[in-house]
């Protein structure tokens, strides 16, 4: 008996032992790239030969190889003359180049399989049920260190096989650590990476941590305000990263105002806070409590939810925009539990004007979009790839895509009696969701089991809402806390926040789990979550780095400055300048955070600074980039120019009120940056203002220049 050894495999394939397409051949086609997107796995295949993407549909691929072209792709009488071997071995011209060396183990296995009559095999017993990867975690302290992974596939029939040479590997941070096609990891620099191991639809992720060049590091114990600090510090200590010091009161106050209510503290508020002699931690907690009760808290967070829920009049109509936005505000104002909010959205019926949550179905409109939006928004799961094929980086299959879509099959939207009104109702017929491949009716099925949740055929959307919002559906809480975390730390613990999958692991799983558990234990109380985050010492760290954390931007060892959002910047400019915002089609004295949708002020300042169009529910629509147009707008745009020179504005009032130069400068600094000028800043400003008196330029104009200069500084433009 001949024995063939598959690379490092510890499982021997016996020559003459029965082979199957499912268990033996398909892994080779996947590993050699035949089923990849650019090759035969693409939407149209290549050169008339189409395989399913990454082999997600073995039956389809088997038919293509064995039955298509009248069976000319294989030759049982002369197996070596099979096209399936001649092309990848380049014995015949092959656009994809050499993929299978003639005489190699993989070549010989396929040859043997053809000799055996090219059997398909049993897809049930041949299915991979589990991947076992060792080691489960990699921690190295030396740059350039290597580690070989070993991958064992467990099959439904109970057998096991070493598939190290056939598995696929990729690194999510190749600049930190890379992995080659044989599963050898090489660390390149200090940092973390996740290695994704794929084999026959199963995935496993190995975390790789490299802690290098940390000589002289010594952990300094720091105070922990709550469990967040415990989990963050544990990670930092492990990675030998020292957190920054606590931010000063002024730095904290400006930060927490922008993050909680979207606007900066007024000079009076800032002065009062700084003058408060209470212990810093206590007075910070007190201001957080006050901010959570401010109407601007509701307005600011309504902007975020309006982005996600696509509050946009091109989709919702003129009245729908206001109705839906007001429902969001109402929910936030009463701190409606998050699960109730989502249930109201998913089960909404009736008029989009009388029952505003029904607007959810006005922008999702059809079942597939409703399902994709629901999973992405409320579970952080992107199902869109599975519409056409099984998800390449996740466990979700095409069948699951349509099973889940079936929950929305009956949902329909029609015009209402009033202008712009639409009505959401349940269809009585023609509501079946059909599989695109064979038109079979796809029954509604949950994506995964959640205990104590029943599926009621007569109340599909109610069943889905119960499943989504169940406390036992961990993704519901996890996706929300992860999303909210990103609002305070510039990135999610899992990032992007709406792409939770095994191949995109969290940077701090323990922290994410703790936040998730806390959110569930507090009955999905959004204010509790926010309060917990901003009261943590981690949130209150300075943005200034030290030698041990300067390269860290994923472990929350220091605050990451964020450019103010378009609304924050617009409102901060007007509030600092004491100018009345000129916004059309909204009530008098409205701020940008009061604008219901992007149709208001379209094409202006807000759009320049990245206000989203609200065409999708992706956080990515809101841009935080920096551009030349933004720079020009800040330097000589009319928004700033008109605000600082407002006749009823702060500077005019200060001058008319008899403020001296020092008072003028101090007020301008507090209004723009939430702090008093430092000594050097004060001297410089005093010199500049004083020049005005003798140069024929008024003090007011000099003061306007100072405010303009501060508006153009990073200290103003960034929340830090």
């Amino acid at each position: 008996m001949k024995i063939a050894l598959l690379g490092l495999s510890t499982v021997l394939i016996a020559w003459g032992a029965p082979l199957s397409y499912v268990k033996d051949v398909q892994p080779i086609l996947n590993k050699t790239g035949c089923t990849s997107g650019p090759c035969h796995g693409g939407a149209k295949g290549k050169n008339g030969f189409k395989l399913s993407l990454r082999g997600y549909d073995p039956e389809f691929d088997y038919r293509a190889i064995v039955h298509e072209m009248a069976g000319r792709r294989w030759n049982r009488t002369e197996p070596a003359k099979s096209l399936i071997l001649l092309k990848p071995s380049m014995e015949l011209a092959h656009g994809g180049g050499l993929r299978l060396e003639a005489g190699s183990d993989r070549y010989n296995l396929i040859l043997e399989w053809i000799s055996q009559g090219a059997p398909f095999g049993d897809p049930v017993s041949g299915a991979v049920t589990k991947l076992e990867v060792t080691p489960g975690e990699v921690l190295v302290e030396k740059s350039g260190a290597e580690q070989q992974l070993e991958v064992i596939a467990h099959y439904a029939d109970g057998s096991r096989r070493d598939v190290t040479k056939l598995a696929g590997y990729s690194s999510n941070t190749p600049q930190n650590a890379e992995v080659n096609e044989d599963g050898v990891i090489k660390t390149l620099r200090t940092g973390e990476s996740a290695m994704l191991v794929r084999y026959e639809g199963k995935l496993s992720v190995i975390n790789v941590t490299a802690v290098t060049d940390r000589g002289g590091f010594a952990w300094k114990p720091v105070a922990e305000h709550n469990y967040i600090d415990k989990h963050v510090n544990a990670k930092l200590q492990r990675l030998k990263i020292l957190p920054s010091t606590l931010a000063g009161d002024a730095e904290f106050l400006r930060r927490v105002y922008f993050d909680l209510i979207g606007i900066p503290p007024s000079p009076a508020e800032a002065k009062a806070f700084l003058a408060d002699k209470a212990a810093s931690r206590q007075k910070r907690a007190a201001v957080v409590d006050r901010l959570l009760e401010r109407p601007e808290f509701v307005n600011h967070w309504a902007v975020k939810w309006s982005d996600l829920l696509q509050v946009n009049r091109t989709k919702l109509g003129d009245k729908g925009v206001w109705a839906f936005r007001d429902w969001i505000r109402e929910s936030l104002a009463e701190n409606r539990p998050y699960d109730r909010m989502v249930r109201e959205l998913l089960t909404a019926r009736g008029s989009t004007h009388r029952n505003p949550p029904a607007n959810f179905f006005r922008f999702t409109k059809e079942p597939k979009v409703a399902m994709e939006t629901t999973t992405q928004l409320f579970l952080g799961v992107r199902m869109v790839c599975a519409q056409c094929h099984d998800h390449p980086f996740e466990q979700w299959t095409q069948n699951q895509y349509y099973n889940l879509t079936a929950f929305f099959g009956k949902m329909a939207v029609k015009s209402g009696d009033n202008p712009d009104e639409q009505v959401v109702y349940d269809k009585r017929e023609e509501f079946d969701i059909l599989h695109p491949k064979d038109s079979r009716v796809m029954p509604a099925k949950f994506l995964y089991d959640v205990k104590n949740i029943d599926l009621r055929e007569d109340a599909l959307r109610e069943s889905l809402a119960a499943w989504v919002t169940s406390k036992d559906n961990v993704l519901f809480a996890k996706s929300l806390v992860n999303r909210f975390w990103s609002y305070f730390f510039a990135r999610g613990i899992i990032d992007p926040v709406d792409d939770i999958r095994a191949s995109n692991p969290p940077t701090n799983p323990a922290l994410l789990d703790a936040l998730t558990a806390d959110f569930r234990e507090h009955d999905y109380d959004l204010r509790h979550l926010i309060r917990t985050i901003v009261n943590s010492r981690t949130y209150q760290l300075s943005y200034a780095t030290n030698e041990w954390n300067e390269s860290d931007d994923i472990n929350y060892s220091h605050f990451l400055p964020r450019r103010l959002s378009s609304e924050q910047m617009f409102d901060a400019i007007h509030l600092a300048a004491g100018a009345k915002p000129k916004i059309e089609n909204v009530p008098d004295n409205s701020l940008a955070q009061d604008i219901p949708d992007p149709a208001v002020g379209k094409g202006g300042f807000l759009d320049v600074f990245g206000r989203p169009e609200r065409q999708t529910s992706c956080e990515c629509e809101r841009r935080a980039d920096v551009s030349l147009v933004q720079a020009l707008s800040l330097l000589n745009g009319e928004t700033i120019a008109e605000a600082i020179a407002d006749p009823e504005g702060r500077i005019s009032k200060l001058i008319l009120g008899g403020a001296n130069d020092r008072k003028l400068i101090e007020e301008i600094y507090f209004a723009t940056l939430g702090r008093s000028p430092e000594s050097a800043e004060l001297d410089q400003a005093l010199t500049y203002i004083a020049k005005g008196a003798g140069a024929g330029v008024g003090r007011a104009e000099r003061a306007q220049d100072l405010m303009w200069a501060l508006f153009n500084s990073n200290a103003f433009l960034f929340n830090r």
Partner: protein
Amino acid sequence: MSTRFLIHSTLALGMATGIAWAEPSIGKIEPRGGQRGKSLTLVLKGSGLTEGARIETSIPGTLSRLSPAKEAKEGAELPFLLELKTDASVGLYPVRVVTEEGVSNVMLFSVGAFPEMEEKETDNPKASNGSLQSAEQVESLPVTINGTLTPADVDLFEFAVRTPQKLVFEVEAASAASAIDPAIEILDAAGKKVAHNDDAEPSGIDSRLEHAFTKPGTYYLRVHDSKYSSQKDNFYRVKVGAYPYHEAMFPLGGKRGQPAAVELIGGNLTKNVRVDVETQSRRRWIPVPLDGSASLPALFELSDKTEAIEPETETGVKALLAGGVINGRIGVKGEVDKYRLPVKAGEEWIVVLTAASTGASFLDALVTVTDSAGKKIESRDDLGGSDPVIPFTVPKDVTEVIVTVEDLQGRGGPGYGYRLEARKEAADFEVTLLTPYVNVPAGGTEIVQARIQRRGYDGPMRLWIENLPNGFAQAGGTVAPSAASQRFDDPNPRFGANTSTITITAEPGVAPQTANLRVVAIAELEGGGRIVREAEGPGLMTTVRGGRGSTVTARWLEMDLPMGVDRATGVKLASPISYARIAQGVEYPLTVKLTGASMKSMGLRQNVATQVGNLRINQGQESTTPNEGTLYVNTNFATPLTSFDFLPQVNVTRGGEQVNVYAPIITFEVVPGYQIWPAANQWSLTRGGTLQIAGNVHREPTFEGGIVRIEAQDLPEGVTCAAAEVAAADRGFSIACNAAADAATGTHEVRLVSQAPDTGRKAKDTYKGPEVNGKLRVE
């Protein structure tokens, strides 16, 4: 000076001086309402409100003329002293002005139950009441506040609640023909919202809420437009007080002259309230007041048909009255009412349900017609409006259909009433006037427009004024069949909508007068018979700006089409023809002349031909004749054989105001370029014999084709016919046919087909004339 005609555009026109358009127009009515039993000064503001004006109104009270304010421009205002009766019903009452120059638009005056208060900001924009600090004080309750909303305006009113109590806040805006879509909020002393409402149930866009104030104190009423939009007609009235109100009613209608009792349902009523309705009225809708309420009354529909109440206690399938009306309701959530209707196969029926459109029912009806075995024949939830209409043909072997009624959203309850009727009719349509009133200038022309909503009928129609007085002429009103639009993407042409226009032209010396015109649409059915539907007048029309635009109307005023005569303008637009035949493929030059005004330029607009496919109106040539121009109506060989209207229009500017001047509509009929007229349509031939099929070719004078070649097709076996050719100058044709000795005997359907290969067009297109069918008997 040459004149250039433009299509689809309107251009300014320099007019001769001395022409006045002074038809009356009411722009504003101050105040918008009054408390019953009180006296007030009512001022109508607008233009053309001259000294001799007569006011037409049903306001329950007396009106005495007062002198206009000295500073008022002539005709700009008309003041009255109004004394409202103490027993006047709460409601909306129309006001119209009639002068020598015509009739005005209608505005609504509201009679209320509470003392009235005017918002100060309305007359003094600086008296802003947009914040808690500047909120306007309400001295006492109950009250009716009259206010206006400027663009993005917010009005706040401060009021005191002295003891725990429930108060109703109810806005009249859209219901009183304002373009405002109101929303209201109640704020506590700190400005925190404690209650709000945008659209009161069951329908409409006005707001209403009842709030239980548990703590005495200061509160605020916040009023704004739900879209913060900018509207010309921007008024609202808010009633604040403790009073009962209802939301729905059952039944929704009954038979004229028969005693009827109505249940008022929902709202803040703790139990349904029974009201006896006076049904001895000629009107279609009569108000059903609720004792002690400040709300507008519900409207009960009277009909002359047999009316019945659904036996709600009866389970199973109930009988549906053919030709009558069943008043039913979906009494509980998820209920499905079923009715049995005896029918015969091939019959055409129409089922009409009325519910949400009455404003007194929550029902969003879904009606389904099945056979008795449950096989669906047709199902609809609405059609161009709120309620469903279902025309259907009874399938073969079906002798009974089941009509089911349910709420589309699966709801139900006492307020889910409906009126259901089934009529044995082929098809139907509904006509609504888009013109609330018309003033025709002596010697001039005005237009009347109507919207036709098809309900299964897809053929041609004509709009017609039945009672046009002497001295006036009407033209147009043509509605082409649905197929003429040649819109192949139209999913259901039997349920499309068309707009049609009639022009009314007054003789130059016509006397000042008013009339109430009755407009009907008439469809002549192919198999004989006709459908005649009377157009429903909008009463008034308020344009709502923003969004996709919409209009507020008041159908319940039951006005037909009031007409007045305006002073002669001296400006006239005319064409020498009122009707023309156009052969398919022909370009027809239409000359139009403007008199009574010197002009720099003018525009013409065709706005009716859009109903017809393969039709173009081309820009005319430059004319050397002042005030005259030509435009070209272009057809091609695919233009459908139908009639359509063309409306020439000039838009002129005088003193900054734009005025439309119309010519009487010209109706075009598209006809074939030529037709074959055989002497007979039945021919006989014996085996071995010959036959001459003779006839004439009738050519339209404008048809440019040369030879017409005619041949017989679908001939029986053994029969041959030679083709005939008819030269352009000739008419007669003769086709020689022979039958073989063994030719197939019997009577056979044959066709005479023809074509004109050379049509004189550059492209040398071949024109195919209409086929003629005949019968050939071979013996």
